């Protein structure tokens, strides 16, 4: 009895180390397949209605938009935060143009001079149905944005159902966003 108890106690360290090791192995394999990102931040806006906001447009690109307009849509909208100073945003543009054929994209220029953002959007043809300027990044904070580019899928009625913080491309669109559209 006493010996059994001793045996159990001395086996505890290896059990603990084994559990930790198994966890690390799961994490590492998740990192290799892309299902685990140690730097991920869960955005709590997913599942909630869009926050209240009203932001002006960019020079020569219309009037900007408000949360009321977003809520009033009858089709899903992809809201994309971008900036002219952000390299992945430049890389993302062709992908966004392809996606815009399936889904209207509303762009928000994050902490960017309006004239720079405007020139950036116009350069190779805008993917955005509407575009607005969040000059001081305050609206982005309400959306829980931590960097650019970031995108949100907003359903009719204004509920956010998906959030992504990687540069979008058609493959990502098919795998992550299409299923949400199909559910409609």
């Amino acid at each position, binding site marked *: 009895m006493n*010996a059994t108890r*001793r*045996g159990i106690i*001395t*086996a505890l*360290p*290896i059990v603990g*180390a*084994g559990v*930790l*090791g198994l*966890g*690390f*192995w*799961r*994490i*590492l*394999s*998740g*990192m*290799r397949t892309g299902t*685990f990102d*140690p*730097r*991920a*931040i*869960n955005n709590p806006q997913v599942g909630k209605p869009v926050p209240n906001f009203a932001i002006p447009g960019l020079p020569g690109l219309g009037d900007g938009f408000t949360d009321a307009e977003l809520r009033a849509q009858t089709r899903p909208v992809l809201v994309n935060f971008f900036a002219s100073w952000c390299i992945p945003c430049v890389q993302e543009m062709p992908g966004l143009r392809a996606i815009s054929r399936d889904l209207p994209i509303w762009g928000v220029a994050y902490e960017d001079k309006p004239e720079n953002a405007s020139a950036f959007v116009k350069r190779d043809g805008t993917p955005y149905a509407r575009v607005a300027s969040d000059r001081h990044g305050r609206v982005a904070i309400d959306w829980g944005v931590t960097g650019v580019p970031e995108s949100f899928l907003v359903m009719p009625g204004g509920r956010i159902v998906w959030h992504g913080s990687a540069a979008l491309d058609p493959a990502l669109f098919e795998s992550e966003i299409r299923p949400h559209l199909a559910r409609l």
Partner: protein
Amino acid sequence: MFGPEQGHFALALACVLALVQFVLPLWGAARRNGRMVALAPYLAVSQLIALAMSFACLVLSAVRDDFSVQNVAANSSIAKPLLYKITGVWGNHEGSVLLWTLILGLCGAAVSVFGRNLPDILRARVLAILGGVSAGFQLFCLLTSDPFERVFPAPMDGQGMNPLLQDPGLAFHPPILYTGYVGFAVPFAFAVAALIEGRVDAAWGRWVRPWAVAAWCFLTCGIALGSWWSYYVLGWGGYWFWDPVENASLIPWLTGTALVHSAIVVEKREGLKIWTVLLAIATFSFSLSGTFLVRSGILNSVHAFANDPARGVFILGLLALVIGGSLALFAWRAPSLTSGGLFSPISREGSLVLNNILLCSICAVVVTGTMYPPFMQLLFGRTISVGKPFFDSATIPLTLPLLLAMGVGTALPWKRAQLAKTFSHLYAATGVAAIGVVLCFWKLSGILPVACGILAIWVIAASVSDVLRRLGLGHTGVRGMIARARSLPRSSWGAALAHIGAGIVVLGLCGMSQAEHAIVEIHVGETRSLGGDDWTLLDVHDRIGPNYKAMRADIAIHHNGRLVTIMHPERRDFTTQNQTTTEVSIHTNLITDLYGVIGDRHGSGANTTYVLRLHRNPLAPWMWLGGLVMAIGGAFSLSDRRLRVGAPKRSSIRNMARA
């Protein structure tokens, strides 16, 4: 002769030697084959020679600017000063793994040379375990992180090194820290050898302790140096982030400190044997996991490492072998180890048990806090953060009883103490601590800083009074005391010094909790005051450095109208790396640090303003001085002849000194 290919070959040779060193002595020991057993030390020394050759080849490639070597091309450049060409060798993943194995080879050779008086079989088994660990990490180096890889065509110049890392403090930080980490491989090997042998006795405790103390000294210095570096290089006045990388070094330090103490109980009372064996295994396991898991990118850290999950899998396999293997052996063999005598809770050994419980509780908190976020994400998909506010509030309450026990513990005799007599030894220390109460309430604000400050003074006073008592203060004259000081064991001096050092560190932390800072935007000639000092921006001018352009400020600091110092903080632009660094200027009088940083320049012409960050950090230098005192205490202990490996059994000197 000393080209990269030769280096690569030497590393492969070392790996083969290490494998032989793993297999032959173990087999020989099991078969009681004297010849195979006797081979172990020679194998260990030849492995070190091969490793040293290999490392020398890499250093030479860096010094010769051989950019056909991928590792040199990626981390060095022609313009880099010679010192950083050499130290840059271990400033990257591949080179640091090679350094790591070199130090492990050094440890093996040290056991061969200094362990001549160990029983042959035990020494052979210890060397075999070290060889096995060595072989694993040399394989890792050869297969996934080859530092000798060539590039073709070779670039004309290398990509250079992060200027933040071009600093003498950081240049010597990794070797010292790694020596600490790797040094715990020796107690680990002793523990595994003892498990194979099925015997742990007082002699084992005496043999293992100097190795643990030596590793502990290096780890203490390494941590202090790292913290000092982040204080004077990163330039925001902080010294400890509670970042996973820092926790990775703190965790083995905590268990290592526990090990250094519990091994005393094994030596003196034949108690805590199983526990000490476990601590020795755990300390090295934490060292390994700390150094290598950080590189796999699992832990979300501010320190950028080349993260590579593929490497991570190899490391994990290796860790599973080393840690899993030793813990399996522990689970199998430990129950058969006999446990030692009884002990009463109020005794020296009782207080050492309490010390172990508290240190390991702190360790458990740090481990849990570091591992919680990745495991929460893995198991529940939730992302949370565990940072400084958590660690502060969870570890400080455990540190308070630890400090209290440190003062009482050394005053307690072995076996059974009489409380009344023990307390009579502590009157003086209690008196000093009472003065400390007044001082702390006067100088410090906040409950925790005051409590920590009082207890730190208590620890220092108790350690000093303990030494004085052993010297016979009040019983003998000055001459008698000097005679006793000569014969007092060095390990007693060492213990007292280490405890005093710990007290000094805690006082430094308390002082830093009262630090003040101001961010100001001023014109040249303007003055701002902070904490009783007047800071005047005298001038700002441009300066050209070897590989940077700098903006240099002259700031005069006056205290009550008397000039204290003129400091010159800089802001440097490294054009090749397109990076800006701040060169902090620190004026210290060993009591208070005045710490100045220059930031942005705004406006132009007569209306130019500069942003300055001014800090007043009371007792900041004590944090690192205390660390140094702790390490010196450890070194003092090491010089005790009774602790030297294989030294004759303890003499009666100690009993005389105790009187």
